[in-house]
């Protein structure tokens, strides 16, 4: 297994760790998650949709990152989700909303909005890295990957 492949596996593992942990902690304390969603400066009418869709999307992304056939799609999806979270964090930090809500949720609740932004940017970086490595891997002809077995 080459260094690039190990790096790709580590990138996927880090993304799975984030998304699976985030979704599980939301479902394990669902009432608090509903309250925290209501605390966000978004219309409360969106809450019933968001409290189900966000953790479910996170689980789907985690699952897709496990399997080879869906991995590239999962990496693109994680990039999109992380960009959305980062834009939201940026909007909050730039005082676009009437107030700055508490940054709550799992262990991540102890992070400030600025620390959230740094974490999100790190995960955007590793998502892009994962996409590049996965695309290179997919573009490689099979005979190169299996050259040892052919010799």
């Amino acid at each position, binding site marked *: 297994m080459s260094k690039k492949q190990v790096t790709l596996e580590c990138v996927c593992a880090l993304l799975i760790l984030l998304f699976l942990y985030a979704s599980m902690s939301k479902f394990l304390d669902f009432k608090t998650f509903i309250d925290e969603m209501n605390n966000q400066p978004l219309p409360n009418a969106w809450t019933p949709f968001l409290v189900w869709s966000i953790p479910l999307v996170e689980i789907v992304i985690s699952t897709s990152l496990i399997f080879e056939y869906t991995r590239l799609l999962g990496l693109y999806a994680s990039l999109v989700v992380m960009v959305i979270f980062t834009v939201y964090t940026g909007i909050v930090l730039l005082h676009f909303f009437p107030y700055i809500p508490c940054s709550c949720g*799992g262990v991540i609740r102890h992070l400030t909005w600025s620390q959230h932004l740094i974490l999100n940017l790190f995960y955007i970086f590793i998502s892009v890295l994962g996409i590049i490595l996965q695309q290179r891997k997919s573009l490689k002809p099979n005979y190169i990957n299996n050259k040892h077995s052919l010799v």
Partner: protein
Amino acid sequence: MNKIKWTILTFAILCSIGSAFATRPQAQFSSLYYWTGSGYAPAGTLGVNYICETSSSVCTYTYSGGVYTPYETSSTYVNLGATTAAKPEPKKDKK
């Protein structure tokens, strides 16, 4: 190759599920309170009656055994002014 891949992924999956269970709150609090300046009062429903706005203060407290313990920290209690709708008064019969 597959062995290393599945070792890394299994470790990530077990870590995430394990840490989610390990960090979940141990007790559910039926009601939360806030500091009014002179005493504690029921906070109401988050997002409906109040919001917790980022600051260095304490937004809500839990109450147990005569002690109020900070619950939602690093934020301030902001009353939204929402109150429960009063029951409609029965119509008075015109005489």
